[in-house]
C-alpha cells in the first residue's frame, strides 16, 4: 500500500514519524507517544490541508532532507529553521509546493529543538494500535528514519488553504512550568518542596522523547525506598533517587516506582519539547482558582 512517495536524503540527529499518538492502551503497557509539540504538529497539517491526526516527520535539532518522488504540498513548523527546495530558499511556516524529484530540506533549528514536516496526504506507514507514531521507549511504530528510508504518502485530502496565520516562535529564555502537587508530594520534606519551586534547574542534555531531565538541586525526600509500581501520566514530574525531577513526555513509561511530586498540565508541554539543553527551568505553584492554560506560559513565545 505504501507508494514510496519520498526518500530520506538526510535523516538528521533523530527524525521520527509522529501523529497524535496511541492513547487508551496504557493498561497494556503501551505509551501514548505522538508529536512532542502537538500545536506545531497540528499547525503543519492544517497548512497543507491535512486532518490534524495525519502523520508528520518530527525532527530533532538538525532537521532533515527528503526527495519527493511526486509533487506535494509541504509545510515546516515547530523549531524555526531555514527551508530550501533544491537549494533555493522557501518559506518556513507556510505551504510550499514541491515538484516531483525535488529535495526539500529543513535545516538546523535556529532555536528550539523539534521541527515538523507535514506533507499533503500525510506520511503513510502501517498504523499500530491506531497510530503511526514511533515510540522510542517500547519500539512500537516505524523505526526512526535513516538515510535512504522510503516512506509513502496518503492521497491529499483537500486543497491546501491559501493562508493560515502562523506565529513565529520566539526564543524560550526560561521554561516556566506550573506544577499541580501530587500524587506523592508527601514523599518530600517541606524543604524539598520549597527546593522544587525556588531552585534553579536547567534542561539536561540527557533529555529525550521519554522525558525532560533536569540538572539542579536535589529534592529532599521525607521517606526512602521505592513505591510499588503505579500508573504514570503525561506531564508527571517523577523524582528518581538522585533527587532531580524528570518531566515525562510522550514516550514515558506507563507505570513506575519513583514518586511523582506533581504534574505539569498538558498545554505547557509543547514549550518543554522545544527547550534546548541548558535552558533555565522554573517550577511554579499553580495559581489558585485559575485553570491552567498554555496562554499563560511565560516563555516569550508569541
Amino acid at each position, binding site marked *: 500500500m505504501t507508494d514510496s512517495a519520498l526518500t530520506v536524503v538526510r535523516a538528521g540527529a533523530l527524525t521520527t514519524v509522529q501523529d497524535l499518538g496511541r*492513547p*487508551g*492502551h*496504557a*493498561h*497494556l*503497557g*503501551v505509551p501514548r507517544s505522538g508529536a512532542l509539540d502537538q500545536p506545531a504538529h497540528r499547525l503543519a497539517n492544517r497548512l497543507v490541508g491535512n486532518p490534524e491526526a495525519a502523520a508528520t516527520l518530527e525532527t530533532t535539532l538538525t532537521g532533515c532532507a527528503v526527495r519527493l518522488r511526486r509533487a506535494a504540498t509541504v509545510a515546516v513548523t515547530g523549531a524555526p529553521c531555514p527551508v530550501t527546495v533544491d537549494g533555493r530558499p522557501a518559506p518556513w511556516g507556510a505551504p510550499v509546493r514541491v515538484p516531483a524529484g525535488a529535495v526539500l530540506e529543513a535545516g538546523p533549528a535556529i532555536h528550539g529543538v523539534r521541527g515538523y514536516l507535514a506533507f499533503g496526504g500525510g506520511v503513510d506507514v502501517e498504523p*499500530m*494500535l491506531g497510530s503511526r507514531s514511533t515510540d522510542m521507549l*517500547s*519500539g*512500537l511504530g516505524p523505526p526512526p528514519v535513516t538515510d535512504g528510508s522510503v516512506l509513502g504518502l496518503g492521497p491529499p485530502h483537500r486543497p491546501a488553504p491559501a493562508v493560515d496565520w502562523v506565529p513565529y516562535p520566539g526564543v524560550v529564555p526560561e521554561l516556566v512550568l506550573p506544577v*499541580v*502537587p*501530587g*500524587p*506523592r508530594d508527601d514523599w518530600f520534606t517541606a524543604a524539598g518542596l520549597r527546593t522544587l519551586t525556588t531552585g534553579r534547574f536547567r534542561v539536561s542534555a540527557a533529555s529525550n522523547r521519554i522525558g525532560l531531565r533536569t540538572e539542579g538541586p536535589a529534592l529532599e525526600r521525607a521517606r526512602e525506598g521505592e513505591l*510499588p*509500581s*503505579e*500508573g*504514570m*501520566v503525561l*506531564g*508527571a514530574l517523577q523524582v528518581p533517587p538522585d533527587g532531580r525531577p524528570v518531566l515525562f513526555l510522550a514516550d514515558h*513509561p*506507563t*507505570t513506575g516506582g519513583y514518586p*511523582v511530586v*506533581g*504534574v*505539569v*498540565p498538558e498545554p505547557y508541554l509543547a514549550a518543554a519539547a522545544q527547550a534546548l539543553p541548558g535552558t533555565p527551568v522554573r517550577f511554579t505553584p499553580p495559581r489558585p482558582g485559575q*485553570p*491552567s492554560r498554555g496562554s499563560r506560559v511565560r516563555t516569550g513565545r508569541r
Partner: protein
Amino acid sequence: MSMRPLPVGEHGLLIELDDGDAAEALHAELLRRAAARTLPEVREIVPAARTVLLDGVADPHHLAAEIVQWDIPPLTGGRGTTIEVPVRYDGPDLADVAARWGVTPGEAARIHASSLFRVAFCGFTPGFGYLTGLPERFHVPRRATPRTRVPVGSVALAGPYTGVYPRSSPGGWQLIGTTDALLWDAAREPAALFAPGVHVRFVPEGRTR
C-alpha cells in the same frame, strides 16, 4: 475496603488501596461500570500494584467523591477465559529458586505449573504482565545484580509476581523457564496476550530438568 483518592494533575486521579487484591477488585468494578456506560468518560484506566489510575477525567474531584462511596464486590476467581502458556522449566535461576523453596527443580516446576495466575496489571514494556497467584511462601526477591539481557520468552519471578519477557531486555527477575508463546504481536487483535484481569496457567512442555 478503604480507598484513598490522590490528585494527579488537572485531569487525573490515583486511587490507592490496601493491597493488590483490592486494586484488582476496583479495576474490575471500573471496567463493569465503563461497559455499562455509567462511568464518566476516561482516557485511561491503569491498574498497578496497589493503585488504579484514571486519566483524562473531566472532573476528577467529583469522580473521586463518587468512587469512595462505591460498594465494591471482592474478586471472584475462575471467571472468564484462562490462557494456557506452554513453558519449558529450563531457566538459569530455576535451581536457585528451588533451593529457596527447599524443593528440587522438578518440584519447583510442578508448584509453578499448578498455580492459577491472574494478570494483576501490565507495564514495563507492551505485553508485559505482572501475574499474581503464587502462594506467599514462594515469593522470591529480584536478583542482586540484574542481567543486561534477558532473552525473549523468559518466564520469571520477582516478589509476588510471575512475568514473561515479551522481547529481549535488561531485567532483574529470576528466570525459571522459557515459552514460545507470542506475548505481543502487533499484527494480532488483540496485540497483547496478557491484559489486566486475564487468568493464566503455565503448562509444562516436555520434560523438566
